[in-house]
């Protein structure tokens, strides 16, 4: 049995939720899919790290360096455990976009090195003309543009799985999209624009069956539901810290050990080497191979505190709470004439990011009116412009909830939408 979230108690942990906006209106924060707010436990953990044991990690022969290293590696273990992974399989990056670029560059770097006679490159990372990379039509730009770049650099072909009118993946022609030519299948777990939760295990199984590497963008899933990276069946999983109550400036990449071991490095320099000579270098084992330069220690400590916070609530309870809010938001929005939901119309296999358009009103104007009511939402194409085009809308308004929201927040938003309709006479 999961214990329901006590939203009133949770809200007391978030200092920012106590403030007002725009002429003393209480803040109604419905933009957690963009970034979540932070509880004082996370803010304090980061601050305490700087107050008590800040030092350069993995070097220095002093006590502070030891403590800082323990804090950093302890955070790695905790965060890896949160997704049922091992610490040595978890790489820290600056954000999820960098995590995905790290993977994409492994392919273009692998191809370039192989072309210049480096036969030590694992053939899975050697990509070229005749090979294909598969994504979906609902990717965030961060899981689309890097692959376009890989294709432009290597001659590989980009393919994508389409989206149907209900915002679900169209899996009918899957065997012609993922085939023997496919070397990469990189898909989003939960769409940041549509809210759709995709059957990633199934897609990863298809990738495995043709010998392709499987990658999952889990930015919108790991903060909101229990995720076991092993069950996903992926080779690599990317997500960010700031959407799961943690600080900005840190992303994660989990990989199967055997895949990380075979992957060429992305950013090179200090800390990621084994030996360095004037004409060549050898590289450290993962995860250090992928963590060049001074790492983001305080941020890792902050994410670990976020994990503690979420673990105390229980991810099953978080998921159940958001499921209720999602159903409520869909129902309330459906009751407003002129509002059209972009994405799955029901709450089955659906996350709490709910995009919509209002007839006769541009999303920017809707967002402005909601802001006037103290409601923070995201407007625009949500870094998923091709997904907007698929639904023939220039942009959407998106509300997205988290552990500190309740149904009254959605009521305020819906009131704001009605006020905007009245004001503009639509």
């Amino acid at each position, binding site marked *: 049995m999961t214990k329901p979230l006590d939203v009133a108690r949770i809200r007391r942990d978030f200092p920012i939720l106590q403030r007002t906006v725009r002429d003393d209106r209480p803040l109604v924060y419905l933009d957690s899919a963009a970034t979540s707010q932070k509880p004082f436990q996370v803010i304090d953990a980061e601050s305490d790290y700087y107050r008590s044991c800040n030092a350069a990690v993995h070097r220095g022969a002093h006590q502070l360096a030891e403590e800082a290293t323990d804090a950093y590696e302890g955070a790695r273990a905790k965060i890896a455990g949160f997704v049922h992974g091992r610490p040595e399989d978890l790489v820290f990056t600056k954000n999820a976009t960098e995590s995905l670029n790290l993977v994409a560059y492994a392919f273009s770097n692998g191809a370039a090195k192989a072309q210049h006679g480096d036969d030590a490159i694992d053939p899975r990372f050697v990509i070229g003309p005749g090979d294909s990379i598969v994504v979906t039509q609902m990717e965030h730009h961060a899981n689309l543009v890097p692959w376009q770049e890989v294709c432009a650099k290597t001659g590989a072909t980009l393919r994508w799985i389409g989206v149907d009118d209900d915002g679900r993946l169209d899996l009918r022609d899957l065997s012609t999209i993922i085939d023997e030519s496919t070397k990469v299948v990189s898909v989003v777990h939960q769409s940041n624009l549509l809210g759709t939760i995709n059957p990633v295990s199934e897609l990863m199984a298809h990738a495995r069956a043709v010998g392709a590497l499987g990658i999952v963008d889990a930015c919108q899933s790991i903060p909101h539901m229990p995720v076991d990276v092993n069950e996903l069946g992926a080779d690599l999983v990317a997500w960010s810290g700031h959407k799961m109550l943690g600080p900005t400036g840190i992303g994660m990449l989990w990989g199967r050990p055997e895949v990380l071991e075979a992957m060429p490095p992305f950013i090179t320099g200090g800390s990621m080497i084994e030996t360095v000579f004037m004409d060549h270098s050898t590289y450290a084992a993962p995860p250090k191979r992928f963590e060049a330069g001074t790492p983001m220690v305080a941020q890792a400590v902050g994410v670990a505190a976020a994990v503690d916070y979420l673990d105390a609530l229980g991810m099953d309870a978080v998921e159940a709470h958001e499921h209720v809010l999602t159903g409520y938001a869909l129902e309330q929005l459906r009751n407003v004439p002129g509002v059209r939901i972009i994405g799955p119309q029901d709450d089955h296999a659906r996350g709490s990011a709910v995009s919509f358009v209002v007839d006769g009103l541009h999303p*920017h104007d809707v967002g402005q009116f909601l802001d*006037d009511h103290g409601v923070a939402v995201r407007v625009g194409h949500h870094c998923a*412009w091709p997904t907007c085009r698929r639904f023939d809308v220039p942009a959407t308004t998106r509300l997205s909830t988290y552990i500190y929201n309740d149904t009254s927040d959605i009521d305020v938003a819906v009131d704001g939408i009605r006020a905007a309709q009245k004001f503009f006479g639509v």
Partner: protein
Amino acid sequence: MNVESLYQEIILDHYKNPRGKHPLAEAEGESYQVNPTCGDEVTVQVARDRDGHLHVGYEGQGCSISQASASVMAEMVEGMDVSTADAVRHAFVELMHSKGAVEPDEEVLGDGVAFVGVAKYPARIKCALLPWMALQDAQVKAGIGTEDQGEAR
């Protein structure tokens, strides 16, 4: 500061009843500008007649601020001599970057004064400037004026 100060009647009127929203028959220069954060789009076309007067047409889609701004712009600068049109654009750009500290001159800006509230909403300034940036760029492409003018940042 409230939302009514942003959406003045003039803005709503231009949004609902756009002026000058049509392509130009014989455009000498054209510029397509897009606001990548929200997807507002506008294409402005310009031409200059024998008497040195500017002619403007546009197409676009987007929020009320960007589209009303395009309409106000097209209505105001249509038929103006080029140096006057450039001065109007300069004044509008200055107003948008004023953070609300500049009292707009209705003599120069006409309906453009209605955008004074936009300057207090940083996220919307780019919406209001979009068509004016397109106008400037189209003029540059056509070789029509725009020397020593403020850049639409």
